[in-house]
Structures are given as structure tokens and as C-alpha cells.
């Protein structure tokens, strides 16, 4: 009879511990999930910015615009054939 009572109290203690563990893990999951969501938001925001910057960069670096700037603002010209020197080894 006493061995049965001992087993019962051990099992009750185990039950209490596991119940607390469930609560604890549940809480951890929730808080980690909230953190994950905020990190995802941050990643998305950075992603968005990165894409925007890439697009902006490629818009500034359009060949047409570069050529336009080179010719009209910087007054650059393609060298004439007689101005070119070919180096032969």
C-alpha cells in the first residue's frame, strides 16, 4: 500500500513539473514567435530598400543616360582613328 502511495506522489510531482514545462515552453514559443515576426518584418524592410536601391542605381546607370552625360555635360568624344595608338608587342 505504501509503495502505491509513493508511486502516486512521484507521479503527481512529475505531472506538476511537466505541466509547468508545457506552460513554460508555450510561453517561450510565443515570445520567440513574436521575435521572429519582428525580424521578418525587418528583413522585408531591408529587402525592399535593397531592391529600391538596386533599381535606382540601374536607373542612374542606364547606358543612354551615361552617354548623354558624357557627351553633353562632360564634353567627351570618341577618339578619331588617327588619335588612337595601337600598341604591338
Amino acid at each position, binding site marked *: 500500500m505504501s509503495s502505491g502511495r509513493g508511486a502516486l506522489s512521484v507521479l503527481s510531482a512529475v505531472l506538476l513539473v511537466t505541466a509547468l514545462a508545457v506552460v513554460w515552453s508555450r510561453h517561450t514559443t510565443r515570445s520567440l514567435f513574436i521575435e521572429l515576426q519582428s525580424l521578418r518584418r525587418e528583413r522585408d524592410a531591408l529587402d*525592399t530598400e535593397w531592391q529600391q536601391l538596386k533599381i535606382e542605381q540601374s536607373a542612374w546607370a542606364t547606358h543612354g543616360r551615361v552617354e548623354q552625360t558624357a557627351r553633353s555635360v562632360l564634353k567627351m568624344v570618341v577618339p578619331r582613328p588617327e588619335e588612337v*595608338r595601337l600598341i604591338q608587342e
Partner: protein
Amino acid sequence: MSGPGMIKPGMTLFKPMKSAARLASRTEERSAADQFRSRLRVVLGTMLVLCICLIVRAVDLQLLDDGFLEQQGDARYTRIAKLSANRGGVYDRNGETLAASVPVDTVWANPREVLRSSEQIPRLAAALHRDRRWLTQLLTSNLDRDFLYLVRHMSPSDAAQVAALQVPGVYLMREYQRFYPAGEVTGHLLGFTKKYEDVGQEGLELAYDGWLGAQRGLKRVIQDRLGRTVEDVESIRAAEPGNDLIASIDLRVQYLAYRELKAAVQEHHAKAGSLVVLDIETGEVLAMVNQPTYNPNDREQVAPSRYRNRAVTDIFEPGSSIKPFVAAAALASGRYHPDTIIDTSPGMIQVGLKPITDRHNLGRVSLTTVIAKSSNVGMSKMALTLAPEAMWNSLHSFGFGAVSGSGFPGESAGLLSDYAHWRKVEQASVSYGYFLSVTPLQLAHAYATLGAGGIARPVTLRRAEQPVPGEQVIDPAVARELLAMMESVVSQDGTGNRAALAGYRVAGKTGTAQKFTGNGYGTDGARKYVATFGGVVPASRPRLAAIVVIDEPGGQAYYGGDVAAPVFANVMAGALRLMGVPPDALDRIPEATLVRVSHEP
């Protein structure tokens, strides 16, 4: 239901009767008690039956059909959320962005919720950059709906201002919009995706839709009363972003081709034009442009007919630019070599009912001169001595009459009719580029095959990561002889002298074809032409092949040598420099521009 019948015979329930009066009252009592008992049984029986029904139902719900209630419970607070994923980007061979998916925000609303706080509407309309009355009208006419798009694809910064107003019932949704930084320059090549959808509709976007396309993910989440996600329950399907595509295009060459073709089409008042540049060593398409073009970022105002990539979909009779491939059959037959004399006088020959003429009477000239001066008479005379089958085989082995295998949507195979149907007049016509039709890409591919010493490599629009094996379709010696003949086209006396480059040897061929319209090839005043120039550079060890097609030049000049050859020269000069190909014609460069250095020991 009551009555003596319910009492079983022989049962002694009451004491024997003593008198008539007692008998009467006893009979009453007895029947009342009987009634009570029988009613009790009925009630108990009914309750038992109902109890069993409940138990059966409970067992049914809890054990046999347990999913239903759980589902109903979950449905009160779980939702399936979509996870958007990015479509793959398209990059040129050097990693320049050609197409990218940019995150944008779509603003949607629940009309009833918004109208409950209608004093916010003017501010909301301002943040959406829309008219206030338009917004009110839109909301009031959609009261029966829970989901209503207000503005699709807003820039994230504008959408953030909308979100900052915190109007109840207005929500943001993340979507992706396709953007093409090079705009018009790569319009036909890349195509575009369907509006508001990540599905390829034209061009490379369509051809590689399966590769580029992303798969939306689905997950089950628990939401609270306000629709905020509280917990992820399970992932139903992971979101899979699309793969990046590295195209074979070199954006620098592409831009150069675009600029030069556009200038030529404008200068000569042409109806249209196409230009294709191929890498001879790999079969990669380095540039592919058409005029008129469109901007894939803003295609609202453009007729869909402009979306066509003429370089692969449109066929035309190539005229003289086909001649090298007919000459290939003659050289391969062994009966002709570049110095074989052909008598072209008097510059005219009658084949069947058809007179074939040259621009000038050239007299007795070598096969090389026939090519260099583009004599139709010489070609016809030579072709008529060849077996039709051999001629057809030569053209077919260069890829005419078959799709190039680029995989581009709507690619045409051109027209090359079976030699069994050729009479003399058709055979002669084919020899100078009529009675067969080709696409600009096919011509470029055929020139690339010549440039590669007779090795046909499949055309590809993706960057080749390894050397591409090809198929030897003509004898390398024949290819060398043809290149030498095509160099004479670009010599001082040839028809294509305006394709010459400083420092590089060029092998090419001009073409000026009359266009076949509904009523024949037109009379003298109303003829329409297609001017072409195809060639390879540098001729000593060809790296690049290109074809320029100018459709219906409307000015005074319409010959391929005058209209198309200069475009070829300008594009090739730039492309050779960009790709760092060393000059192979140093002897033709003025001595003063050459600097010789010797290594110190």
C-alpha cells in the same frame, strides 16, 4: 395505451373484493394505479431511448466523426495566410540587372468598416493620390463586399503614409511588380509579365516562366479578434522564390545595337528593323533588337502588335544575303572554286518566263566577283548546274527552314520548300534569295556557322557555362574559301564596302530584296525593299556574327550596302572594342598610329 390488457393474466395484484361498493371504489383505485405505472414506464422508456440517441450521437461526434467539430472550432480563429515569394531576376552575362521584381504594396479595404469612419475619407484619398469623390463612389457602390482593391502596386513609401493614417478597414498587402531598368533597349527580348501577376506573357519572361516563376507558400495561422497573427500553426507549403536567369545578352552591345538601329531606321524613314549579334564560339545571342520598340515598364499606350520580336518571328525573302550559302553548295560539289569563271554577260538571263537581271553587265568574272558584286545572273547560272537536292541540303544544313532552337516564344521556322517542287525558275530564284523566307535570327545563325568554320552551334539565349559542342555541317576548307569571298564584298570594289572597319578584317554579304506584297513585287515607282547586311568579324578568326535588317527604307537609299552595312560597321566596331578582340588587320592601319614595344630582357 392504458387498460387491463397491459396486466398479465394470473397476476395477483389486489386482495379479493368484499362488497359491491368497495368493489366499485377498488376498481377505480386499481385502474388509476395501473394508469400511473404504465405512464411511468412510457416516460422512462422514452427517456431511455432519447438517452441512447444522445449517447449514439456523442459517440458519433467524438469518436467516429471527430474531425468535424475540431475543424469548426479551428475555423473560428485559424486562417490560411499566403506567403508571397519573389520571381527570379534576369541578368545579362556580366550581371547587370535586366528584370527585377520590386516589392510594392497594394491597398485594400473593407468598405463598410471604412464608411463607419467616413470623416477620414478626404485624408485617405489624399494619401492614395486619388480624387475624394472617386473614393466615396467606389466605397459606397461596393458595400456588399468584404474585400475591395483601392490602389494596386503603390510604392512602399507612399503606402506607408496610407498605413500611418490608421483608417479602420484599410489594409496593405505585399505584392511584387516587375521592373525593367533598361526599358526599350531590352523590350522585345525580355518581354514582360501579366499586369498584377507574376506570369510571363511575352519574350524571355514567357520562355523561362517555369524557371523564373515563384511558388506562393501557404501557412495556417491563429489570428486574434483584430486579425493580427498570433501564432503559426503549420506550414502547408513553403514559399519557393523563382530562380535567377542569366541571359546571354551583353547589355553594352545590346545598347549599342539599339542606338545604331534606331538611328538608321529614323534616318532612312524605314518601317521597321532588326539586328542580331551572335557569339560565334558559343552560339550565344549577344544582342537582339528591333525597331519600332516599346517600353515594357509602360506599355499602356502601345499597340500589342509592337510586342512582336521581329528578329525571331517575322520572315522575309532574304535576297542576296543568302548567296554565300548557295555558293557553299557549289564549292562543296567540287566543280567550282573561288576563281571559276562565270559569264554573266549581257547582265540578263531568261529562265522560263522570268528575266533575271543584274544592276550592271559584269561580263566574264570569277565566282568571287559574282559574290562581291552580287550578280544575280552569275548565281542563277551557277545554281542551274547544281543538283536541286545538293542546294537544298546546303541551305537546310545552315538551318534554313527549321527553328534555331533558341526556345523563344513564337519563333518561326521560315519557309524552304522541298526541292522536289523546284522547277528551273524556282531553283534560280532561291540562288539569289527569293522563293524562300528566313528570320533575321536564322540568317545570323547561318553566318555564325560559316564563321565557326562550318560548325553549327545551337542558338542560346542563356549564358553558356561550358564550351558548346556543335555539328560540322560543311567542310572547314569550304568555309574558309567562302569567308575569303565574303571579304571581297567588303573590299573597296564590293557592294558592302561601307561595312569596313579600321583595324579589323570583315567578311559579309549585302542583300537588297524586293518585297512581295499582295500584288506581286510592285511596279517601278512603288517597289518596297528589305535591305540586309550579314557578316562576321574579325575575318581571320571570327568571334562575332551579326545581321542587320532594315524593312522598307523610305528614302533615296535602299541598298543593303548603303542602309544596313554602316549599321553593321558601327555596332561591330563598338562590340569588338568592348569584348577586347585584338585587331587582325594591322597592315591596313596607318603606320603612325602603331606603337611597337619590345620586352626588355
